[in-house]
């Protein structure tokens, strides 16, 4: 049997190429992810370790997270006296402010290590020799425009325990050298100033022994490290211990690599999806191979093979494929990652946390194990199917053989139950947060998301189980339409696609899962984006507000301007002239400028309960009343604000932030009486918007001092910052408010996340498309005789190719359509479960992107048909009929 199996594998190699490719991809994906993790850690290890490169021992405080022991001058002397200790170095590290024209920035300042411990290297110039000299690292120099010869001013705030006060100490330093940037991510910053230790000691005599630097010890030649370490431990206070730099780096690493691990966990989810899709492709391939080998298997059974031998022969074939493909997959991953590092490593360096390629055993073993297990599990179904081949089937004439197994009623029932139960849970979990609304305390959202997740998982299993029923039906339906356009080859293609419903359904399922996930992510992302943007619009309806700036009540200029404008002079703000409005409107990216009156609210108070919180009064929640009043006409507000229809400005109602909306706002009017307003959401925190007639009751101001700006849609955060810069350039003293930058940043974050997730899911889709090509080429091989017969009966080569292309497009296009449909459903419901509690779900479907996904999938399917159909068309009718 072994021999027959091996011969069969050898003969089937061309048929196994595609499935191997699918396994290679999935395994490479997993391996690359693990290599990424270990490489990030290795890079980190190298960069952390670099600073202790010249130490034999370092002094840890004995904690598990890699902190240095505190070493006082006293202790230092004791350690230096230990037998075998050659030198000791306590790094002095502190923070200092660099004073520049446009403000001050915090920098790390570090004492230059003695020669024998020094790991900092010079890029140019020299190390500081006196306490008026400093070296600066490359990236800090670039960031703050520093060069050799520059003289900088610094300030250090020395804290005195006695007086509990800070004393500023300013110094002047000359830059004498540029050092290479530190790669240590554990450092407070990427680098800073290197100065003499005398300089630092002078800043703060008490700093000694309290800085965060890790004390390093060098040993005399021939000294026994562990014996010396033990002696040092004895003099170190509070559990501190001397350990090797390696051991210390491991401690630091463990406390730092949570990020790398989290990334790996997230990536592993996508690896899991790729493996799942891969399993579907494998199962399908082996099912096809088994059905193609039905006669051979029956013959083997006649000749005395028992069911177990047949079962094992299929699994053996799977194991061989799995081992070969998995090993190749790991090699591909290693090649890919080392290539990536070679190309991008020098470019990104430590910024990406990736400089050292590290392939640890887990990155080799686990992907191979996963590849083999997934392949074996996936091949079990087909193997069991193979054992059901009856010996009698060897006696039947060829054409009577029908491999197609009819799908059972049990499958239908189970699938339906899963869809109904899972679907109900999903819908309930998605709608619940919206119904409960924002009053919930957050646990509903988590519960809702969890329910939606479970519901989705359960119903998706059902949907895939039912695929065997609806996929052929959909293909038949759509095929009937296309048959009209493509004539006989279109009709034949439709019949071919549905002749083996289980195979078609399995192939389609792989693609449905891949495309469905992408569609889900795209839709959920779009809904999330629209909902968040909408919510931000409600909370911060004005893109930008520009206040002219406080110029002082007593300013003569102010007074004269205000006087000439004939208004009251009590605001203290410069007036916004019509020239200003024109200037603002002329800035690129500004859509609309609405000048508005503004007044400070001195004695506002809130009462009653807000719309959002059903319990607790304003005081309980600590919300303060608005401090600024703005007046615009309802029409102007409608045109400039991004709030929804519900935010309507009218007399008697003040628009306030959503936290306090619904409370009563009581203000002292110009005439000294108390006026009470209803409130409704439609403004940002601290600002209340009134109609001009209401505003007149609380302020006598008639000169606009604030401009409300609406920006063009779709500006990036960078563009909005440019707008703000342009405004600052025109009005240097203006203060600019508004959350448009935030909104743009949110949009960008969501878009970036979507792009990454889609990219990661693309691996699964590529595997699914390999599956489409595989199924097609296998069925072409299987139908060689039949296709030859068709050719002999007058089907042209082009018609044959057309038939196979139509089959491919039908299968991949319809799978993509179904996947997209499901994805929209799951995406909207999933987003509702997550964001429903925030309120105001905006259902928005990214039609264009989804259309692109469907078109790409269909085209990829077409591409997948090119190979098989060329092979089929190349065969002459005679050659085709001769094969068996």
């Amino acid at each position, binding site marked *: 049997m072994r021999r027959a199996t091996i011969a069969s594998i050898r003969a089937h190699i061309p048929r196994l190429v595609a499935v191997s490719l699918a396994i290679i991809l999935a395994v490479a994906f997993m391996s690359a992810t693990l290599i990424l993790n270990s490489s990030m850690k290795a890079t980190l290890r190298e960069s952390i370790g670099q600073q202790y490169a010249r130490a034999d021992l370092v002094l840890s405080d004995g904690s598990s997270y890699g902190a240095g022991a505190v070493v006082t001058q006293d202790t230092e002397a004791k350690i230096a006296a230990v037998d075998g200790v050659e030198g000791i170095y306590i790094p002095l590290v502190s923070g200092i402010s660099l004073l520049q024209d446009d403000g001050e920035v915090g920098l790390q300042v570090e004492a230059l290590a003695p020669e024998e411990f020094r790991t900092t290297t010079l890029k140019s110039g020299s190390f500081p020799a006196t306490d008026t000299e400093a070296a600066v690292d490359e990236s800090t120099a670039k960031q703050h425009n520093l060069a050799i010869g520059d003289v900088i001013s610094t300030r250090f705030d020395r804290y005195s325990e006695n007086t509990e006060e800070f004393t500023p100490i300013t110094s002047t330093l000359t830059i004498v050298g540029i050092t290479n940037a530190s790669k240590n991510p554990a450092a407070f910053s990427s680098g800073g100033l290197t100065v003499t230790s005398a300089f630092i000691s002078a800043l703060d005599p008490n700093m000694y022994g309290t800085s965060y630097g890790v004390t390093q010890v060098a040993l005399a030649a021939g000294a026994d490290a562990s014996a010396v370490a033990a002696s040092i431990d004895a003099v170190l206070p509070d559990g501190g211990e001397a350990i090797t730099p390696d051991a210390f780096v491991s401690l630091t690493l463990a406390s730092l690599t949570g990020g790398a691990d989290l990334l790996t966990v997230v990536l592993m989810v996508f690896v899991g999806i790729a493996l799942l899709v891969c399993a579907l492709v494998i199962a399908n391939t082996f099912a096809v191979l088994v059905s193609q080998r039905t006669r*051979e298997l029956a013959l083997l059974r006649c000749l005395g093979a*028992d069911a177990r031998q047949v079962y094992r022969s299929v699994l053996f074939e799977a194991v061989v494929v799995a081992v070969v493909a998995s090993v190749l997959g790991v090699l591909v991953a290693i090649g890919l990652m080392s290539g990536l590092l070679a190309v991008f490593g020098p470019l990104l360096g430590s910024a990406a946390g990736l400089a050292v390629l590290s392939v640890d055993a887990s990155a080799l073993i686990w992907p191979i194990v996963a590849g083999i297990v997934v392949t074996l599990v996936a091949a079990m179904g087909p193997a069991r199917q193979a054992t059901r081949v009856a010996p009698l089937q060897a006696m039947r004439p*060829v054409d009577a053989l029908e491999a197609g197994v009819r799908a059972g009623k049990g499958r239908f029932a189970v699938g339906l139950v899963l869809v109904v139960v899972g679907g109900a849970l999903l819908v309930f979990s998605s709608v619940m947060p919206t119904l409960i609304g924002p009053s919930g305390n957050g646990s509903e959202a988590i519960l809702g998301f969890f329910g939606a997740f479970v519901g989705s998982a359960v119903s998706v299993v059902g949907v895939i189980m039912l695929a065997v029923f609806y996929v052929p039906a959909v293909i038949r339906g759509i095929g009937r339409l296309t048959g009209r356009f493509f004539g006989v080859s279109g009709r034949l293609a439709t019949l071919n696609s549905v002749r083996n419903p289980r195979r078609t359904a399995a192939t389609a399922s792989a693609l449905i899962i891949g495309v469905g996930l992408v569609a889900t992510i795209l839709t959920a992302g779009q809904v999330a984006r629209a909902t968040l943007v909408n919510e931000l619009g409600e909370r911060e309806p004005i893109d930008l507000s520009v206040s002219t700036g406080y110029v002082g009540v007593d300013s003569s200029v102010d007074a004269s301007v205000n006087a000439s404008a004939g208004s009251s002079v009590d605001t203290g703000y410069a007036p916004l002239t019509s020239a200003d409005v024109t200037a603002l409107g002329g800035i690129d990216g500004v859509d609309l400028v609405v000048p508005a009156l503004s007044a400070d609210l001195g004695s506002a108070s809130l009462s009653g309960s807000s719309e959002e919180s059903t319990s607790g009064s304003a005081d309980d929640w600590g919300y303060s009343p608005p401090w600024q009043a703005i007046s615009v006409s309802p029409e102007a507000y409608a045109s400039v604000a991004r709030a929804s229809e519900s935010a309507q400005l009218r007399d008697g109602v003040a628009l306030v932030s959503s936290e306090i909306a619904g409370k009563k706002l009581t203000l002292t009017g110009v005439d000294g009486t108390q006026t009470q307003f209803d409130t409704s959401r439609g403004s940002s925190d601290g600002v209340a918007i009134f109609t001009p007639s209401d505003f007149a009751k609380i302020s006598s101001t008639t000169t606009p001092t604030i401009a409300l700006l609406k920006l063009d849609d779709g500006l990036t955060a960078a563009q909005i910052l440019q707008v703000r810069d342009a405004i600052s350039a025109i009005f240097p003293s203006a203060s600019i408010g508004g959350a448009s930058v935030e909104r743009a940043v949110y949009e960008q974050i969501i878009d970036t996340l979507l792009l990454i997730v889609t990219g990661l899911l693309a691996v699964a889709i590529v595997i699914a498309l390999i599956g489409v090509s595989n199924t097609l080429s296998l069925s072409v091989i299987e139908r060689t005789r039949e296709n030859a017969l068709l050719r002999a009966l007058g089907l042209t080569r082009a018609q044959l190719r057309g038939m196979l292309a139509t089959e491919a497009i039908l299968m991949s296009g319809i799978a993509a359509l179904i996947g997209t449909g499901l994805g929209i459903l799951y995406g909207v419901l999933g987003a509702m479960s997550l964001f429903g509690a925030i309120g105001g779900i905006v259902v928005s479907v990214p039609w264009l992107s989804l259309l692109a996904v469907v078109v790409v999938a269909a085209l990829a399917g077409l591409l997948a048909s090119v190979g098989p159909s060329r092979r089929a068309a190349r065969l002459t009718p005679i050659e085709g009929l001769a094969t068996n």
Partner: protein
Amino acid sequence: MSSVSTPVATNDRVESAARANDVVKVYGKGDTQVVALDHVTIDFPRGKFTAIMGPSGSGKSTLMHCLAGLDTVDSGTISIGDTIVTGMNDTQLTLLRRKRVGFVFQAFNLVPTLDAEQNILLPSDLAKSPVDRIWFEQVVDTLGLRGRLKHRPSELSGGQQQRVAVARALLGRPDVIFADEPTGNLDSKAGAEVLSLLRRASREMGQTIIMVTHDPAAAAYADRVVLLADGEIAGDLDGAGPDEILAALGRLGA
């Protein structure tokens, strides 16, 4: 014959290689019901070459499938040698096929991915039983396959493929070799070669052979011809020639 667990048939321990006892086989249900075998009792003596003939649809293949344990019977019993086949489970049937019966089919006899020698050795390979090399060499020489052992089925002529199948069947020295239209796909010369090989195997090696055929000329190579009609035994000729067989068939209305 009610007990299945006693695998010993009553009297014909020595003479019978295969035996059908009051076998009924019905296909389908209701209107489409076909009685393929209608109370068939027949005995195939050891060492004889028997041909089964009859009109199309008369139940020849069905009888052979039932005798070989490939298909179940609705009533009656089948025995191979002294073993009762009826009621055996899949494992027992597999063991039976390994040791006790051989097959030669009309087509698709060989595993296309294995060469001739590997195909011949496949049953002993599957059973993991040792190969009698002397017997192997003898069979290969007798069938004239010496120069073809390393060829794949696709590199062999139809007649050579059938001879490989015969060699495979002979190698295991089974109780019975079943052959369903073994010459159906061959021209008369290649067919005659295969048939005389089968006859030699039966005469010189004492091999029991049961062959289904349509061709009176092929049946004439057999020691005995059993005639079937509508699922019943309709005749039993010993050492008949082609003309005699043709005449007997004619009487059946075929």
